[in-house]
């Protein structure tokens, strides 16, 4: 595999990033943000993987030799990051609902247009 795994993850990341900065629709922006973040999680988890390793849950050592565990630390970091990600999504969506109530639109350029005119 070499670095191929990382490169695919980077492609995913950039697809998400593009959606965030190019899209006009607020919900699409949030979806893009989600893809961007999940791909960063993949970057972390990829680095923790050890070839022929197993999940970092201790098993009874069989015949005196210890199993190889994948690195648990990136997993812990990403668990935290996932939670942060969903918290951001929830807040963003709540803001979108309020924006829609106040402006009647969820397209960013229309909203900015209304602000300029008022």
């Amino acid at each position, binding site marked *: 595999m070499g670095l191929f795994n990382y490169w695919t993850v980077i492609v995913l990341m950039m697809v998400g990033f593009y959606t965030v900065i190019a899209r006009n629709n607020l919900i699409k*922006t949030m979806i893009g943000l989600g893809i961007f973040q999940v791909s*960063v999680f993949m970057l972390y988890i990829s680095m923790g993987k050890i070839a022929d390793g197993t999940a970092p849950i201790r098993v009874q050592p069989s015949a005196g030799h210890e199993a190889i565990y994948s690195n648990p630390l990136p997993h812990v970091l990403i668990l935290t990051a996932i939670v942060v990600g969903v918290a951001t999504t929830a807040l963003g969506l709540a803001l979108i609902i309020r*924006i829609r109530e*106040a402006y009647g639109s969820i397209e960013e350029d229309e909203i900015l247009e209304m602000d300029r005119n008022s």
Partner: protein
Amino acid sequence: MNLEQLPILQVILPLLAAPCCLLLRRSRLAWGFAVLVSCSSLLIAATQLHIIHHSASGSISYEIGGWAAPWGIEYRLDRLGGLVLLVLTAIAAVTLSVARRLLQEEVPEERHHLFFATFLLCLAGLSGIVSTGDLFNVFVFLEIASLSSYVLISMGRSRRALVAAFQYLVMGTIGSTFILIGIGLAYMMTGTLNMADLAQRLTMTLDSVYAEGASIENPALPVNQTRTILAAFAFLTVGLALKLALFPLHAWLPNAYATAPTVVSTFLAGTSTKVAYYVLLRVTFTIFGLAFTFGQVGLQFLLTPLAIMAILVASTIAIYQGDIRRILAYSSVAQIGYLVLGLSFATQAGLTAGIVHLFNHALMKSGLFLVVGCIATRQAGLTLESIRGLGRRMPLTMAAFVVGGLGLIGVPLTSGFISKWLLVSAALESGRWLVAVLVVTGSLLAVVYVWRVVEAAYFLEPDDKTTSEPHDAPAGLLAAAWVLLGATLVFGIYTDLPVGVAREAAASLMGVGS
């Protein structure tokens, strides 16, 4: 319980006070509790700075959970952190003590307790960022601070606040995701998240961080010369620049500060970008080190022009704004330019100037936004037209504004003068006379935008001359604004606290890198 528990108390006190606020439910109770907590935080911060400043090592460390670093998370505070914490908690305490009065017009009373809970979370997040010595912990507390500031900003009265908060949320999340990528890449090549440990392992050679027998092309290469670390540094810096609102990534800041409730702009204007600047100092000096940041990468060649652009462009934009809050917000973008300029000199004098300016500008800008809050209690409009003749109607309030404005310009006897003077002499000392000239030009631009407000308040006649008898803001509010702005006068004359501490902080930052 003894003094060695202080570093953790500094952060968990506001953090755990937040759920208590939620349970208290009553606006007055929650407010009283929040004020109590923020005042204790201020006390803790002052004690900590005192301990650090008089200790031999110049830093204190606290191992959370009893796990030694780098296995556990370590809190590590030095003079710089102590100074930032002091100004952060001072502004929080002053702002919170007048928050209830300011909120009356802006947030319905039955949700004040939620507002105070969010405010305390923001304080906890910002203090956590400053105190921690663990890079991933920075990310977690950065998110607490950011999420709570998105919420706080969206509480503004106009619907624009919602859009501003959403834009800030998107930009801020991009910033923190970049920071997360940067942390990941740095972790990948070093295996550690502790800042001190990271700094040490970055200078080791590749064959000593890999296992024995690994197939590496160039075993003698130091870790910090790999392209992975270069990318890590780039992502961390760009992410922090977004959070810092460094030109040209500042787009979120003016809208956010101009539409947020005045309590919130008062607090955030003095703290959130300052804390981002603090993290930038940590990353560039403590973790990656002087030689890497300014020798190998040459960050100064990027930061110096950006900082100067920030000063000149943002000041010019500020001149053309019609709303006081937008003038102050663009002025903040310009002041961030001064901060970063000090950093980009990579000299002890430049750093000292940056740190002193962090301290002074935090007080000034919070004070000025508080004055805006004072004005807002007496009249609805905050445009230059609507404040005409305000100098006579609210004499003490506008006098406070003038004091703050003079500080922004950098007139002698204000603390703003001290930091500008340090910055200019740092520039001249290292032979950057052009930069020095541009800094002075920036001050002249500040004269223009401050003058426009002063002119409107004192020299232009209001359209209706009906309400001309003096009617200042409520005494408590006014006193709070004068406390912050008076402090800038005091520190303009007695310079020991900010300058003395900053000089030693700068020395230790420079020492780590060399």
